Every structure is written in structure tokens, then in C-alpha cells.
């Protein structure tokens, strides 16, 4: 049993360690401050700044959008519906189920919708698809936090004559750290996902300038660089993977620190 | 006291983290008698009971100091074998917790763990134990149904039978009737009175009338200390300590 636990925790260190050892030598300032120059994928000058920025745009945009969409849903489930409400439990169940739907399916779905509306692969398409992907994470995380707030608090506020809207405000204020956790988790998932954006956001060597220009993403940049036969480019893929790992770990640790007092051993 | 003590507690201290839950407890539990622990909630009576079969072992942040001798053997000695100690004691908890298996398997669980494989012997034993707790007639036709389908009162008697099946010497009851209706409570109490012939019984209860009905001795525990330990009638009707007087006053009047 101890061996099994060590293996599992060891898995984490093995991954981070491997990425660190292989990625560190190729990590340079150029990599994170420059966009790909001509012949970048053949080993020439440049960096993956375009992809870093593109990923940040997508993660930021989709987390923001998902927050705007999910907050009313979570409040509706928790404030307006009764605890025993059918709709409430169906909504929770469906967010659990949607949470399990793989990103490639969201990607394929986003793609079909975009064809239907005649949209090209773009930053907007990426943001919308990733929003669908992180929406369930957002709903689950916030719902979990809000449910830990004692019902008596709501009752107390009602008995002082407050409306449901005011009660909602109290709930939000009480669960701000939880909301931040949800944003961070969504952000982490959004920045790291490939399968949903490869169909919908496209790729380019430039930093996206408008919402309908194609948006490069860091994971996809890693994937492309790794496919190159040139050693130097592969090394840059490892370094880019290291950059992504560091970003994501920082986000995870931040989210954990915030959520510590709300729930244990939840993911 | 007439008999030699079955359980002898000497200078026992128990800590939950920073909280000093039991303070310097020393008490001799007499053999083949019913001893009740009474006291307000949170006074430490359940904690004391659980030290007798080392159920604190797996708890986080519990520290036990001092000695608990069972049949003269210190159960907190590093050489003591915990399963052997626990086998000597049957435990009845506040709510019945039947194991997730059939009625039959619940009773057979203990004996099987201790190596009994003979189907005939097991059958016999199960019947015997169920008869002992007056449950046989109620369940003999559905021994293979899950135990959770029984009523709460039946479940509690099943748990008692399950404990008796490993042939313990001591029965520990942690407010065993607190979840039961009056009728089931009465049945359990009657069983205790019968069982006292063969077993040493230690009971935690907050019902003074119950303590009076079933026990030979009562220990009054308050704030982690034993305030008074005396034969039942004496403690209830003629307490020596002020604290005891105050606690049993409602009972006397």
C-alpha cells in the first residue's frame, strides 16, 4: 500500500522532473519573449510568445464568460430552488456529466456549430468552445462552496426582510474565495487543453490582434514543435512544456491554497 | 468490593490534541456485574469506555497515558495484541451498525475471522446467539436477507448477538438504547439483566432510571474525572459528593 502511494506521488515528481531536466537546457528568454521568426520550425530564431499570449487570451476569455454564465445558474440552484428541487438535482447531475465529457467532443461540437454559422477558426471560436468545456468545472466548484454555507445564514437574512437578490449578494460575498478557486481551476484547464482548441481556434505565428483572427495556443505549439524532425525544435517543445507546467502548477497551487478551508481531497 | 476486578484502570489520562479529556482516572470494574457510567454529555464517559478496547488507536490526535488492566494484563503494553483484547469485549454502540452483509453473516463474521470454518458449528452458533437475544423466532426464516432490513430495535439485538458470538467476557454498551423506542429499550435492558450472570457489563448511559434498573454499580463522571463510584442505590439515593448530589437531584425528587 505504501509502495502504491509512493508510486502515485512519485508519478507527479517523475513527470515534473522529466520535463524539468529536458526542458531547462532549452529554456531561454527568447522563447518566452519572441514570436516565431521565419523557419522557426526548422530550428531558426524565435519563441512561442504568440502561443503564450493566445492561450492566455483564450483562458481569460473563457473563464470570464463561464463565470458570467455560471454564477446565475449556481445562485438559481441554491437560492431560488428548494433543496429538494428536481431541477436542482438534474442541473447538478448534468454538470457532473458534462464535466466528464472529453474536450475532443467539445471541440468537435464547437466545430460543427462554427460550420453551421459559417465561422472560421478564430480566437472567438476558441473562447466559446473552451467556455463550454470549463462551464461544468465552474458550476461544480462554486456549487460545492456555496452549499457549505449554512442555510441558517440565508434564513437569518430572510427573517430580516431581505429579498432573494439581497440574499444572493450575501452568498456571493461569503463565497468569494470559492469563486476565485473556480476561476483558477477553469483557467488552468483552459490554458492546458488542446483537443478543444485545435478545431476551433486555429493556429498562427502571430499574436492574435482581433477576436476573429486565428489564435495560437501553447499546448498546440508544444505539439507542433514536438512533431518536428529537428532536434533543436524538439528541445524547444520540452522547454515550452516546462513553461506550461510552471504556469499550470502556479495556478493549481493558488487554487488549492484558496480552497483549503472549503473542502478536503476534492479535485 | 466482593469480586476481584475484571478491568482495572490506573492513572489513566487521555488527550484529544490539546484537550485533556480524561484526568487521572482510576477505577476497578467488578467481575460479572453491571457497572454504569453516568454524567452530562461531553464528560468523557464514552471516551473512557472506548479506552477499554483501544478503539482510539485509529483516531487522529488521541494520546492515552496510564494503564488499563484486563484480567491483570495491561492492554496498552506495547506487547499486547489488540485483536486479542478486542475479542474479549463485545461493543454495542449508540446506533446499531450491522455489517454490510446478511443476518447470518453478521453473527458468523467474528467466529469466521477467528478461524471457525465448520458450517454445522456455525449454524449452531448463529442459532444459539440469536436465541440468546430473543431474535431467533423473528428472523429464522430470513437469515440470508441483508441485516439492514431489520428494524432498529432488532438490529441492536443483532449487534449484541454478533458481539456475543466471539465469546467475550465483557460487554461494553455506549448508550445502546439511545436510538431505540421504549419497547426495544426494555428488551435490551432485560437482556442485560440476564447476561450479567455470565458477563461483566459496562454501560454508558445518561438515563438515570436505566442505570438504576440494570446496574450494580454506578460511576459518576464529570469533566473528565470520576467524582464518585458506588453501588447503585447508594450513589443515587445517598450520594456523598456535592456534584453527584446536584446531578442526581432531579432523580431523587
Amino acid at each position, binding site marked *: 500500500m505504501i509502495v502504491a502511494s509512493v508510486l502515485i*506521488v512519485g508519478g507527479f515528481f517523475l*513527470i515534473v522532473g522529466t520535463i524539468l531536466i529536458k526542458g531547462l537546457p532549452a529554456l531561454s528568454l527568447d522563447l518566452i519573449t519572441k514570436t516565431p521568426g521565419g523557419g522557426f520550425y526548422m530550428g531558426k530564431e524565435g519563441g512561442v510568445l504568440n502561443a503564450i499570449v493566445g492561450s492566455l487570451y483564450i483562458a481569460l476569455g473563457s473563464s470570464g464568460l463561464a463565470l458570467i454564465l455560471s454564477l446565475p445558474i449556481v445562485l438559481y440552484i441554491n437560492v431560488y430552488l428548494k433543496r429538494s428541487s428536481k431541477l436542482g438535482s438534474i442541473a447538478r447531475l448534468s454538470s457532473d*456529466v458534462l464535466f466528464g465529457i472529453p474536450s475532443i467532443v467539445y471541440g468537435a461540437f464547437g466545430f460543427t456549430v462554427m460550420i453551421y454559422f459559417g465561422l472560421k477558426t478564430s480566437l472567438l471560436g476558441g473562447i466559446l468552445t473552451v467556455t463550454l468545456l470549463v462551464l461544468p468545472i465552474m458550476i461544480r466548484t462554486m456549487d460545492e462552496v456555496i452549499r457549505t454555507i449554512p442555510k441558517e445564514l440565508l434564513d437569518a437574512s430572510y427573517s430580516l426582510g431581505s429579498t432573494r437578490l439581497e440574499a444572493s449578494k450575501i452568498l456571493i460575498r461569503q463565497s468569494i474565495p470559492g469563486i476565485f478557486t473556480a476561476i483558477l481551476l477553469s483557467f488552468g484547464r483552459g490554458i492546458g487543453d488542446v483537443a478543444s482548441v485545435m478545431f476551433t481556434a486555429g493556429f498562427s505565428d502571430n499574436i492574435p490582434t482581433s477576436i476573429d483572427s486565428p489564435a495560437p495556443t501553447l499546448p498546440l505549439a508544444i*505539439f507542433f514543435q514536438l512533431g518536428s524532425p529537428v532536434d533543436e525544435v524538439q528541445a524547444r517543445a520540452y522547454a515550452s512544456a516546462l513553461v506550461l507546467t510552471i504556469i*499550470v502548477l502556479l495556478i493549481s497551487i493558488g*487554487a488549492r491554497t484558496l480552497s483549503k478551508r472549503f473542502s478536503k481531497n476534492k479535485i | 468490593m466482593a469480586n476481584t476486578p475484571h478491568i482495572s484502570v490506573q492513572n489513566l489520562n487521555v488527550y484529544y490534541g490539546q484537550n485533556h479529556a480524561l484526568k487521572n482516572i482510576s477505577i476497578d470494574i467488578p467481575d460479572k456485574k453491571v457497572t454504569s457510567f453516568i454524567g452530562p454529555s461531553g464528560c468523557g464517559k464514552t471516551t473512557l469506555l472506548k479506552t477499554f478496547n483501544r478503539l482510539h488507536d485509529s483516531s487522529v490526535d488521541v494520546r492515552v497515558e496510564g494503564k488499563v488492566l484486563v484480567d491483570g494484563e495491561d492492554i496498552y503494553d506495547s506487547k499486547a495484541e489488540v485483536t486479542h483484547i*478486542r475479542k474479549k469485549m463485545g461493543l454495542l*454502540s449508540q446506533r446499531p451498525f450491522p455489517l454490510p452483509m446478511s443476518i447470518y453473516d453478521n453473527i458468523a463474521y467474528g467466529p469466521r475471522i477467528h478461524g471457525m470454518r465448520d458450517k454445522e458449528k456455525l449454524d449452531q452458533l448463529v442459532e444459539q446467539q440469536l436465541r440468546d437475544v430473543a431474535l431467533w423466532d423473528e428472523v429464522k426464516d430470513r437469515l440470508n436477507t441483508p441485516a439492514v432490513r431489520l428494524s432498529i430495535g432488532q438490529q441492536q439485538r443483532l449487534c449484541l448477538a454478533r458481539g456475543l458470538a466471539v465469546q467475550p467476557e465483557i460487554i*461494553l454498551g455506549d448508550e445502546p438504547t439511545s436510538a431505540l423506542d421504549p419497547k426495544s429499550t426494555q428488551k435490551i435492558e432485560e437482556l442485560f439483566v440476564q447476561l450479567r450472570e455470565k458477563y461483566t457489563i459496562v454501560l454508558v448511559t445518561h438515563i438515570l432510571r436505566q442505570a438504576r434498573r440494570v446496574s450494580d454499580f454506578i460511576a459518576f463522571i464529570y469533566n473528565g474525572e470520576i467524582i464518585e463510584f458506588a453501588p447503585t442505590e447508594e450513589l443515587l439515593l445517598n450520594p456523598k459528593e456535592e456534584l453527584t448530589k446536584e446531578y442526581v437531584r432531579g432523580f431523587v425528587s
Partner: protein
Amino acid sequence: MLVLTILSVLLAVFIGLGLYLRSLPLLELKSVGSLLTSSVWKPFKGEFGFFPFIMGTLWVTGIAIVVALPLCLLSGIFISEYAHHRVRKIIVPFVDLLSGIPPVVFGVWGVLFVVPLIQEYIAPHFVEYATGYSVLAGGIVLAVMIFPLIISILLEVFGTVPRELKDASLSLGATQWQTVKFVLLKRSMPGIIAAIVLAISRAFGETIAVLMVCGNLPEVPHSVLDSGYPLPALIANNYGEMLSIPLYDSALLFSALILFIIIFLFNAISRIVLSRIERRMN
């Protein structure tokens, strides 16, 4: 608010419907049965046999579960029943962090570590030459990816087994291990199965990490060292060309539909089981 809530519930329906509509052109020409059982994959000739891809998915998923389940069960039992709470506080955060690592990083790790490991140390014992890019590599990478999911659900399920129930077994003289075997595991069985089903559905849908390490040959694998080509990898690898070949897009979206239906059902069933367990606890 109500509208948004209902829309979120209906999202799954929209996804299923959208994918179905796009796969219709293919489904009108061929029966579902022949698509699923045929092994001929020649998009240019309009032949779309999904059998190799389905088998690729099953192999990779099967290996992942076989590797991950025993490890996760043992480690879950250790964390919840044996480990000191300080040890627990050290282990659990790492499991959490593992869950946050992006798939592409798992893929890079697979390429750098698992594939060479198989090529140099494992495969030579069995075959003359192997690239290491195999369903085994995919399975191992996936196994590590599903560790956190399985462990977190197991810990939750184990946590719902009342302390008193374990005490009851212990006080009958059972050892800790006997108590785990006969009481904890038995009582947690529905939850354990739900965890496995969720893990399977996660493994089914994982795309990029598997794609990077399992070789992607459209043939039915016959051993763990063979290459495989799981469904998600098929979609991801070919999205670029799918609009240039007739029916190709329909075929790829049909595979997304297969994935969606299987995973949706698996998830729904296991989530319902898990919420029942939680409710029983309250």
C-alpha cells in the same frame, strides 16, 4: 436564471444532436453495424471501418485501468485507513496537482520517458524490434492521468463508511486489514465501480497525450507492444483534411458521436450511483 439553468442542462442534448446531424450523411449510406465492425479504413474510397479505432481505444483504456486500479485501490486504502493524517496531508495535494497537469505535458512525458522505457527495457524481452510507440505506452500515460480521478472518488466513497461500522468489526477482534476487506471494500463496492466507470470514460476520451505515444496505425492491435489508433486520436489527427474529402468530416464527427454517447452514459450512471451513496450518508 431559469433559462440559463435549463440551457446548461440541455447542453448535453445540443452536443449529441449537433454531432448526430453532422454524421447523418454517412449514416444514410452505411448502417451503424457495418461501420462499427468493418476494418477497412480508406477515406479516399469512401470506406470507413471504425473497428481498428474502437479496438485501439479499448486496448489503451483496458491497460490504463489494469495499471491504475490496483495502485489506486491500495493507495486509497492506505491514505484513508492507515496513513497518519500528516502523511495524508502530504499525499493528497500532490494527487491534486497531478490532476492539474495539462494533457499535452503528459504526452511530452510519455514521449520522453515511457516510450524509451518500453523501447529499451520492456520490449526487447518480447520482440526483436519495437519503437515503443504502442498501446502499452498509451495505457501507462493514461493510467497516470486517471490516478487523481480514481483516488479522489475512492477517498470520498471510503469517507462515507461510518467510523462506527469499522469499530464494530474491530471490536469483534478483526484486524485492520480484515476490516478493510470485509467491511470497507464491501460497503464501498458501488462507489468503487462508479469510480472505475468514470475512469474508463475519462480514458476513452483522452486525446492528445495518447495520440502522442501510441503510434497511430489504423490496425487492430494484437499485443500491448503493437501500435494502436484510438478514436479521439483519429479525430484530432485528421481534422485538417476532413473538409477536403467527401464524407470524411461526417465520419470523424460520427466517431465523436460514438465517444459522446458512451461517455455520456457511463458518466450519467456512475454519477447517479455516487450521488445515491452521498445521500445515504446524510
